[in-house]
């Protein structure tokens, strides 16, 4: 813009202002009118709503988190329960006749249960220990316990379980379950025990 034009515009503007005011009264102080009150209220309302909304979102998120945690805890507990159940099934002992190492017919079902568990939990490794009653010879019982553990393992392997997942040991008559010289105590002591060696943190049902 050129200086002349600028000046012209300034003059026009001044005249326009003078023409509009006409007199001397000072301009009235700005009065709060109804519209601005409403606007302010609306603004505050919207802020409150926003806060409430944020709050409810936060609460909802917290609730969701709580529920999620609860569900997680519940499912963990459920998994732990299942794991414990499976462990319990796995720990069920089997028993033998005096001076025998063959699997009794009634105990085959217990071993079948263990086969299912070993199939469903491929990381699981177990150790089978063979035990004897005190009636036999002390040293011979080490061999007999070994044979009991071995025939138990063989049953599982015959059902398709990888042999490398099962260790065997024998304790002979050295770790009795029940004390006393009764047939009941002896029968309890002629047994194979199952112990988890690895992969037993989280077990699933077969």
């Amino acid at each position: 813009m050129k200086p002349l034009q600028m000046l012209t515009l300034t003059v026009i503007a001044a005249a326009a202002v003078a023409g509009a005011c006409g007199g001397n009264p000072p301009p009235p102080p700005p009065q709060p009118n109804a519209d601005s009150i409403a606007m302010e209220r609306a603004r505050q309302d919207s802020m409150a709503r926003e806060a409430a909304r944020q709050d409810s979102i936060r609460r909802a998120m917290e609730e969701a988190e709580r529920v999620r945690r609860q569900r997680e805890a519940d499912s963990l507990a459920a998994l732990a329960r299942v794991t414990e159940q499976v462990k319990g099934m796995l720990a069920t002992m089997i028993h033998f006749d005096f001076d025998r190492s063959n699997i009794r017919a009634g105990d085959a079902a217990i071993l079948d249960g263990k086969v299912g568990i070993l199939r469903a939990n491929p990381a699981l490794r177990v150790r089978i220990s063979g035990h004897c009653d005190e009636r036999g010879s002390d040293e011979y019982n080490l061999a007999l316990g070994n044979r009991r553990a071995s025939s138990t393992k063989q049953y599982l392997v015959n059902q398709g379980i990888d042999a490398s997942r099962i260790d065997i040991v024998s304790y002979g008559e050295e770790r009795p379950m029940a004390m006393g010289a009764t047939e009941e105590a002896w029968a309890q002591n002629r047994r194979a025990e199952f112990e988890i060696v690895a992969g037993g943190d989280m077990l699933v049902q077969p």
Partner: protein
Amino acid sequence: MRVAGGRVRSATRGTLSRRCGVALLLTVVPLGATAAQDTSAIDRGVRIGIVYRPGVRPGFVALPAAAELDSIRTILARDLDFSDRFEMITLPGSDTARAPTTALNYPLYQALGADFAMSVSRRGDTTLVTVHDVPAGAVRRSLAARVPDARHPDFRQSVHRLADQVLQATVGALGTAATRVLFVRDGRVYLVDQDGADVRRVSSGDRQAMSPAWAPGGRQFAYMEFWDGKGQLFLHDMATGQRRDIAVTGRTLDFTPAFSPDGKTLAFSRAIEEGTDIYTFNLRDDCCLQRLTVGRFSDNLSPTYSPDGQRIAFVSTRSGLAQIYLMAADGTDQDLFAPFDYGVTGSSNAPEWSPDGRTVAFHRDIAGTLQVFVLDVRTRTVRQLTSVGRNQDPTWAPDSRHLAFVSDRAGYRQLWIIDIETGRIRPLLSQGGARLPAWSPQLPEHAIFTSQPGER
């Protein structure tokens, strides 16, 4: 022991003698019956050989000694009694605390039925044991030894060695007084003198031990310890109390070690998944693990060498139940050793070949309990030695005449000793819980055995 009172009077007085003779008979009969308690069981089986009847054994009188020598005299007399070679005779009215008789009275001793008499005296720091030939009325042998003070740890053993010399000087037999027995209690290996004195712990491990077995010469023994379901074999040195592991063992369940008579080879049982079999290992060169049996569907265990080292007796389940078998030391020529009736005879276990090679002791299941048997190697006949209670795990004394074994005849499992000639039985220990005994060979002269501190 013979009651001598009656005989004295009968020898010295006239009319009284007959009545006292009757009284003597009456007292002897019940004593004889007690001594023959387990002999009666022998009579039921087939028996071949000479039977030593009580009363035909030579009479022996241990003469009273000076007070300071009385403990020596008492130990000697007990050792000679425990040898079961003599009828021990007590002097009439004699009291161990009494002063020694100043003069020897051979006619009196002979009247009491003594063939031998023993007197103990001291000259300087030397203990003198004089053995008298009573019928000849003369000194038969004079034995001298430096017996240390009674508080010295070698005191009892040096007296026991004297007792063995007395036995040698009288009946020419090998004595076992200066020997000891290893056994297991609460999973630890203990040692006890053959007369039950001086029980002490010798194994140093804190895991469960089993199956101690002496090395020839008695300076070492082997045993097994449970290691997390595996069996580790150890060699324990008696003098130092130190042990070393046998490196080829421990990764499997290795148990029942047994030395070859030359001490060079250790045979043992190894349980693996296919079953239990017998292996040997060359200890001298620390090499050459060798498998002697291949069981597959049976177990083979508990090896014991013949004293010539040529053969091994062992347990096998190849017939279904455990029985005693025999093989050459290299594993060839495996055959049944102790006869049994298939389907009738109970399982047989824990064989131990006698030091003279003539007999194998073992135990056999009879009607649900265990009894000690001996197998005559030449005739292959067996006879039952025990019948009272449960009796198991026999182990030979070096005289091939006495066996230590585990018995619950007194109500709890304990070690007992039987003389297989007379059937006489005596307890070795009074405290219960002992098992798996191993009787030592003749021990070296100055064997100082280190025991674990604080353990008795």
